[in-house]
């Protein structure tokens, strides 16, 4: 191999940031068992978060040499660490406050240059310093969706049962790392958690290019492979002449099982999601069933189905430690007020209110009685931040623990006062009372007074650490999660054959939320995901002028095309409540998962409508019209990439699957003698 100059001092060499090669189970055996082996190449264009609010930060280095940074960030704890490192200040002298912000979507997860710049300038001047990025600067900061080229090869039995899957992904990383190593692993991690994949191989490569750095955007590294997988499965269903909904239903991953790549599945409501959207959309009355001659819908109208899954919190933090991922502190005052303190960051998803609902539920008081203080490294215990759909599950579990500990103290004091057995006491309607004799009781405020009299000031803490993953191989850190959410969507589209313009008319989407803590917030996330999905599916793209210093083609809200309310389709949402034992009250995530099925469902619907495959997003009118013309001329009715680069992959790290008796560790490498 030629010794090429390195772009950065980190990474796997030259312009390669990361190269991964993992193999779970005997692939040869898997493909041998298959009745059909299909291979597809697909591309997912990069796009950006487009939050309404640009990033902004204010720093103040005060007279006693302590630094406070207010920043529109999703991850105050990680920013805190980055500041301590770069400014060479003791972490105990730095306070980071995440301000309410106008949307993150992953774009405010990295510690940013401007956060460090305002801090340094304030240290130099002793004055408060503020930086607000312009919209153009937000486009250049980016850290958005990676453009990913993918090759997928799957062996299936006649009934659609997967025997082996081989997945390759090539990520255009932009100029810097961001969370790109995790992004690379994520393009290969979650293929196994929806349908049973007994043997699985993944190879991924992230390259540095002269563009703004890519990073985590809603779905972090998984919308691209999910798009590829769900379109690929649609094509397999057509070859096998199977209904794509039934084929998927038949081969769902088992709940409470371990996948070939050692991800532990908990509750699994995907089957119910599929059944709901199939019924709601009247799929059977609409889907062509691969028979273009006897269509049920008129030519130009079509339906498509896709499914997905997402983690409810990453199993590991981004720096190695054994401490909890989330901490909650409760303070009860004699007036009956409860203060919840947690490092979590509300970026509009409603995580502050989740803390209030959960604590109120356990203490039998009203959420309005609760004050919530969050995202302030001086006032709140650490929570790792708003990313990887971790907040409700992890802060929720920590809040339950803290609230149960407080309830225990109150119970003891009240039981003593009322001479009632401890197990008889219940908390509801702002009272603590005997369940056998509900008139016997005290108000919640009186209960706090009793407890404070007995124990002193009442404060409790709770924390949460995810369960250990069964995966022990190198690379097993990305993908494990306490639980997995599931989604299924049916899209109905209209394709204008004279222009290629695709209009999404309606989307039915089922989401397995485990348990809704607040259904209005859950529905909001689902509908918001559909809206973002329409943009990614139909128009959004980060494009550059290669011949003009690689400037972004149009870093503006006018010319970076994202849907308006006029492009938004009707959405019918079904919430599936299949409680997960690891979730707080059984709750799972909803912030990212429901985005994932939208893009492939639309691509599959376009095929159903006009019989052309658009194997890349965005599905623009130009691509559809080109494919329609090719089809009319008898050429391949497809628009998409035709090849992937030749890469010298490293020897795969081999892991026996659980079914093969594996223990989650990699097999010792066998030296190959020629």
């Amino acid at each position, binding site marked *: 191999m030629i010794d090429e100059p390195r772009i950065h001092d980190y990474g796997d060499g030259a312009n390669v940031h990361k190269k991964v090669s993992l193999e779970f189970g005997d692939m040869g055996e898997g493909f041998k068992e298959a009745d059909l082996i299909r291979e597809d190449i697909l591309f997912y264009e990069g796009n950006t978060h487009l939050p309404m609010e640009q990033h902004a930060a204010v720093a103040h280095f005060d007279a006693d040499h302590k630094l406070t940074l207010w920043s529109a960030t999703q991850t105050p704890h990680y920013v805190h660490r980055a500041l301590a490192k770069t400014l060479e200040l003791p972490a105990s002298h730095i306070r980071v406050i995440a301000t309410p912000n106008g949307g993150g979507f992953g774009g405010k997860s990295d510690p940013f240059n401007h956060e460090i710049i305002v801090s340094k300038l304030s240290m130099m001047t002793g004055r408060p310093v503020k930086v607000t990025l*312009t919209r*153009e600067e937000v486009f250049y900061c980016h850290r958005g969706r990676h453009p990913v080229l993918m090759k997928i090869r799957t062996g299936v039995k006649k009934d659609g049962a997967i025997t082996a899957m081989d997945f390759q992904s090539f990520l255009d990383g932009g100029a810097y790392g961001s969370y790109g190593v995790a992004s690379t692993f994520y393009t290969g991690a979650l293929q196994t958690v929806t349908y049973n994949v007994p043997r699985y191989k993944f190879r991924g490569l992230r390259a540095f290019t002269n563009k703004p750095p890519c990073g985590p955007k809603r779905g972090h590294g998984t919308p691209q492979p999910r798009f590829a997988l769900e379109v690929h499965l649609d094509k397999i269903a057509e070859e096998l002449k199977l209904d794509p909904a039934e084929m998927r239903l038949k081969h769902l991953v088992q709940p409470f099982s371990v996948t070939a790549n050692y991800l532990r599945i908990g509750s699994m409501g995907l089957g119910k999601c599929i059944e709901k959207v199939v019924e709601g959309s009247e799929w059977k009355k609409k889907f062509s069933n691969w028979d273009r001659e006897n269509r049920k819908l008129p030519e130009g109208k079509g339906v498509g189905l896709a499914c997905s899954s997402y983690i409810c919190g990453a199993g590991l933090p981004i720096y190695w430690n054994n401490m909890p991922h989330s901490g909650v502190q409760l303070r009860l005052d004699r007036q009956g007020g409860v203060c919840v303190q947690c490092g979590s960051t509300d970026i509009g998803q409603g995580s502050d209110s989740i803390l209030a609902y959960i604590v109120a539920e356990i203490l039998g008081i009203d959420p309005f009685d609760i004050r919530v203080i969050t995202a302030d490294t001086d006032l709140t215990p650490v929570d790792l931040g708003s990313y990887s759909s971790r907040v409700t599950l992890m802060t929720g579990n920590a809040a339950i623990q803290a609230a149960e500990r407080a309830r225990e103290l109150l119970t003891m004091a009240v039981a003593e006062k009322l001479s009632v057995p401890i197990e008889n006491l219940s908390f509801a309607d702002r009272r603590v009372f005997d369940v056998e004799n509900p008139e016997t009781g005290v108000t919640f405020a009186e209960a706090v007074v009793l407890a404070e009299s007995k124990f002193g000031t009442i404060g409790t803490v709770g924390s949460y650490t995810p369960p250990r993953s069964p995966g022990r191989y190198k690379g097993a850190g990305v993908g494990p999660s306490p639980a997995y959410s599931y989604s299924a969507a049916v899209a109905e589209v209209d394709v204008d054959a*004279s222009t290629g313009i695709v209009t999404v008319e309606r989307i039915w989407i089922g989401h397995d939320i485990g348990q809704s803590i607040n259904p209005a917030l859950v529905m909001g996330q689902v509908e918001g995901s559909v809206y973002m999905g329409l943009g990614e599916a139909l128009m959004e793209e980060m494009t550059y*002028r290669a011949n003009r210093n690689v*400037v972004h083609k149009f870093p503006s809200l*006018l010319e970076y095309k994202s849907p*308006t309310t006029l*492009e938004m389709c009707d959405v019918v949402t079904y919430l599936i409540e299949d409680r997960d034992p690891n979730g707080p009250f059984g709750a799972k995530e909803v912030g990212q998962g429901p985005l994932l099925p939208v893009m492939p469902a639309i691509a599959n619907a376009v095929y159903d409508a006009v019989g052309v495959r658009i194997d890349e997003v965005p599905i623009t009118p*130009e691509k559809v*019209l080109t494919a329609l013309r090719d089809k009319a001329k008898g050429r391949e009715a497809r628009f998409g990439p035709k090849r992937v680069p030749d890469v010298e992959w490293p020897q795969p790290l081999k892991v026996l699957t659980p079914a093969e008796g594996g223990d989650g560790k990699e097999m010792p490498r066998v030296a190959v003698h020629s």
Partner: protein
Amino acid sequence: MMRLPKFTYRVPRTVADAVKMMSDAGAEGQFVAGGTDLYPNMKRRQQTPKTVISVTRLKELNQIAGDGRSGLRIGASVSLTDICEHMLINRDYPFVAQAARTISTPILRNMGTIGGNLLLDTRCNYYDQNYEWRKGINFCLKKDGEVCWVAPGSRKCWAVQSSDLVPLMVAVGAKLKLVSTLGERVVDAAGLYNDDGIDYLRKRPNELLTEIQLPPRNGWRATYKKLRRRGAFDFPVLGVAARLDLSDDGTVKDAKLILGGIAPAPVEVKEAEQALIGAPLDEERMQAAAESCYMKARPLDNTDFLMNWRKQMARPYVLRALQELREQ
């Protein structure tokens, strides 16, 4: 984006004062109405007038007079929202309201005016960028640079005529009143536009557009079709304005077909008009007209969408315009 540069803001109360102020300001002067085009351009330093003269308080520029029988006179400062909602316009010239409704967004239509829209700066993906972006590519021919990046061999600027009302006004034969200290003149809308992205108006800078005159509606019909990515915000990447005069037996007596959004000036497709005139408006004739428009449309790669696709869209969009006129 930078903030607005410093400038003197003047608010005349009469047209005479306005043109006098402009004469005093000289080459550094600029009229402004709604400011939805000028102010963003000033923030991006594409235009940097030292004196900005508002025409929004000029009474005669805010009036609408006449009707479909006598012709309609619309003051240049009438807002696009008022154009969309005006009872007489909707009754006698519905296509004008229809085209105005496709401009940008409701909020910008509240500020933007019909006169401002007719004088809209030409647009280009290499030009409608902030100062730093343009500096990053060494600027372009239209402003501060030497090369047209759309067509690097070209001596001409290819920025695009991007107003929705321009093709329509040309198609219906509107007349425009221009006033300066030297007096006033009335020109055909068709004569105002020049096929050059920099020097895109055949109007002296000190002339104030005061009035748009629509001809009486004696039998002719018109429509406007707009191609763009989204249902709001976006400028046209192709606009089709069509006017037809049909005799009682359905024969086309006269026709105008004007394409917007594909060149520095609105493009009249005479071949398409000839294909229609003197014959009934049948499918074959309409197809022939659409084909002529397709041949004539030569957009370059400086707006949203691929240029080849925009060219191809001339066929269906012209066809749709003509089909709509046949049904009217």
